[in-house]
């Protein structure tokens, strides 16, 4: 029922998303055992192909693969022949010739995982491409909200922060809308990508308006080194206007939860307090990330060589 790859949420059907979440729920149980390992993917090989540095996502995929007994190989450009000007596709094809059962790809340019998937026999899982998509992050966010609220349908979800550079925001907009939630986004006008309304979200610039009645508040990371000056006057001003803390949270529903994909700029987009404590659920997101990635690997690794469906993103 699923395609061979997981490249984005945009191309997934609601039923496919639900199947992944159901599977992840059972994988959570494995993570609660004393022996957190099952033999399911014994003899399978998973390659983490990360052209962009990442510790959290890569580690999460690595643990997920190992808990399923797969052999996980990490491959990143700094330790490879990428420096010898081998092209991305050459690298991918070389790795594919070693018959991996899944390749997890991260790249700073949107569309690279898709391009690689077109050339490879192995299923490709997008672990983040430019400002395009980060499907496993959105899925683990869905899992976290589902666990907290018991449903996604009818919830009011607010995404706050740098929408322009955020693949997490894009994937989450698709994900939550497909499962029946209403999504609002809030950001400084300079950080709202043109045409984002076309995705069906309500765009507001005032945080208070965005938080009003929200069940879920999702805070995005500000890349302060890169952005200050160009997109907002100062960190202090961003924090005062768009930073989420307990005081501003009172506009949201009483039982609203606060999420962040990490790594957090503490005291900038999210207060220390919410980073560590409920209603902040940041570490639950991390924990669920492993179960969710186990589910994706379970469903996809082993589908090497299958023809891929046309027209899927």
């Amino acid at each position, binding site marked *: 029922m699923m395609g061979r790859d997981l490249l984005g949420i945009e191309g997934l059907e609601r039923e496919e998303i639900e199947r992944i979440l159901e599977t992840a729920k059972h994988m959570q149980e494995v993570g609660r055992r004393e022996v957190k390992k099952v033999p*399911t993917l014994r003899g399978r090989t998973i390659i983490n192909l990360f052209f962009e540095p990442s510790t959290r996502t890569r580690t999460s995929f690595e643990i997920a693969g190992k808990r399923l007994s797969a052999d996980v190989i990490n491959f990143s450009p700094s330790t490879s022949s990428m420096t010898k000007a081998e092209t991305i596709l050459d690298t991918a094809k070389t790795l594919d010739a070693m018959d991996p059962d899944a390749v997890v790809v991260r790249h700073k340019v949107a569309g690279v995982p898709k391009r690689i998937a077109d050339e490879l026999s192995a299923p490709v899982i997008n672990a983040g491409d430019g400002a395009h998509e980060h499907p496993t992050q959105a899925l683990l966010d869905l899992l976290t909200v589902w666990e907290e609220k018991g449903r996604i349908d009818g919830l009011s979800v607010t995404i706050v922060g740098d929408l322009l550079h955020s693949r997490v925001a894009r994937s989450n907009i698709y994900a939550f809308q497909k499962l029946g939630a209403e999504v609002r986004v809030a950001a400084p006008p300079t950080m709202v990508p043109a045409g984002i309304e076309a995705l069906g979200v309500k765009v507001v610039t005032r945080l208070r308006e965005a938080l009003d009645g929200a069940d879920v508040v999702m805070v995005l990371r500000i890349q302060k080194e890169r952005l200050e000056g160009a997109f907002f006057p100062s960190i202090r001003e961003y924090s005062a206007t768009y930073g989420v803390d307990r005081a501003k949270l009172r506009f949201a529903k009483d039982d609203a939860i606060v999420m962040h994909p990490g790594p957090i700029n503490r005291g900038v987009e999210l207060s220390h307090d919410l980073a560590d404590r409920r209603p902040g659920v940041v570490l639950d997101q991390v924990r669920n990330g492993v179960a969710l990635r186990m589910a994706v690997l*379970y469903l996809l690794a082993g589908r090497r060589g299958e023809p891929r469906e046309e027209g899927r993103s």
Partner: protein
Amino acid sequence: MANDPSKAHGAAVRAASAPHERVVLDDLGIRRALVRIAHEIVERNEDLGGLYVVGVPNGGVPLARQLAENLREITGVELVVGILDTTLYRDDLTGSAQRPPLRRTEMPSAVDDRIVILVDDVFSTGRTVRAAMDALMDFGRPRAVQVVALIDRGHRELPIKIDYVGKNIPTARRERVVVRGREGGLDWPLEVVVLADEGEGR
């Protein structure tokens, strides 16, 4: 699963109304088998407090619960019931592209030093029990494992034996044997049905 009121009247009527399926064990038959098996378990095991009844989903779960209830009635000992999905331990995952859906696992108590009574609904090739034993060992080191199957339909492929059988039902390989709720789902009243020729049996 279609629900036809006439099904409540038993195998003969069912066979007439739905030629592709026949009821081989009705609710009363299932309950009687579980009472007998409970007595056999009591007869065989001295340390009744050490028993841990574990059902393999989906069909094994309601049977495990009823069996634990029967054991409680006979002995007065309250028993823990666990649920153990074997899907992640199956030996046929390699080579099959479509992954089977996972089912619930809930092991509320440690298995170390317990006598685990593993309850499956339909025993055939032995592969599910093989997988269940591997799964069980991941939860600890049981003192012993004994297997209950409501139905033994034959076609063994592995050297595994069952300790307690509800009923032997010789079948053709292409037939399927299912335990199901008469009202749908897996709620009591249950019945065991042989379905003709819908693909390969597991």
